[in-house]
């Protein structure tokens, strides 16, 4: 799993590459927590373009971030889910609480204007 990050306003944008499972989750969590705390960021935008596999361990890590940030008024946005990845998110019901976007720009705009509210 490769993660490259950039900061835009109070959002962390993360480009993910590879497979998100129990083996790569620790690295995923660590890097995101570190970057967000260091710069005191509120929102997390995850770009899944390079992710071809995710299982419930991966979903669990994302849900964990979602719950943590939500308590602090932040959001998690999902960008570019491939069909097989989207299927897993859907089955777990996560697309009912997190919003999916086709590109990072739109996701950023939405979280910035205090955008989506699915609940």
């Amino acid at each position, binding site marked *: 799993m490769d993660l490259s990050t950039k900061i835009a306003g109070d959002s962390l944008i993360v480009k993910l590459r590879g497979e998100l*499972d*129990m*083996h790569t989750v620790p690295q995923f969590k660590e890097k995101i927590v570190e970057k967000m705390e260091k710069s005191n960021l509120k929102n997390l935008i995850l770009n899944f373009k390079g992710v071809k*596999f995710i299982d*419930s361990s991966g979903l*669990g890590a994302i*849900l964990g971030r979602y719950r943590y940030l939500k308590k602090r008024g932040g959001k998690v946005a999902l960008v570019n889910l491939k069909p*097989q990845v989207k299927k*897993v998110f859907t*089955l777990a019901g996560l697309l009912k609480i997190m919003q999916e976007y086709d590109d990072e720009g739109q996701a950023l705009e939405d979280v910035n204007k205090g955008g989506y509210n699915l609940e």
Partner: protein
Amino acid sequence: MKDKPWRMLIKEVITLNNQAHLTILSKSSNVGLARITAATFASELDFTLSELEEIKVAVSEAVTNCIIHGYPFEEGLIDISLKIDNNKLIIKVTDKGVGIEDVEAVLQPSYSTKDDHMGLGLAFIDSFMDEFKLESEVNKGTTVTMVKIPQQLNHAVE
């Protein structure tokens, strides 16, 4: 029998049989090995890419459970038996770990004995495979048996 392209007719006649066995240590780095081996083995059958992805998720969940729940204290062996029997894929994932006290209980969706886990692993296996069985004995270990049949074939023999 309706008119069918000859390829489908042939599929009804040729039945594939094969088997393989993979044994791995319960290390997180081996979860990927297990699912890739299983999907590669499965690809001998006429699964679509989307079905192969479902098999990968199911195997990933089963093997992850052996590592996290089956062997919580020390490393152990996980056995993945792969079988093609009459165009049917049968996968068994076995650990010799702590086992499950109440099998009925853990089969409930969202049930997890670990706070930070979603309890979705077994539900995913159940959704993505055609058949699924969980057998376990405390202190002996756990076996998950999963069966999947290519949908194309299901349609062809309808």
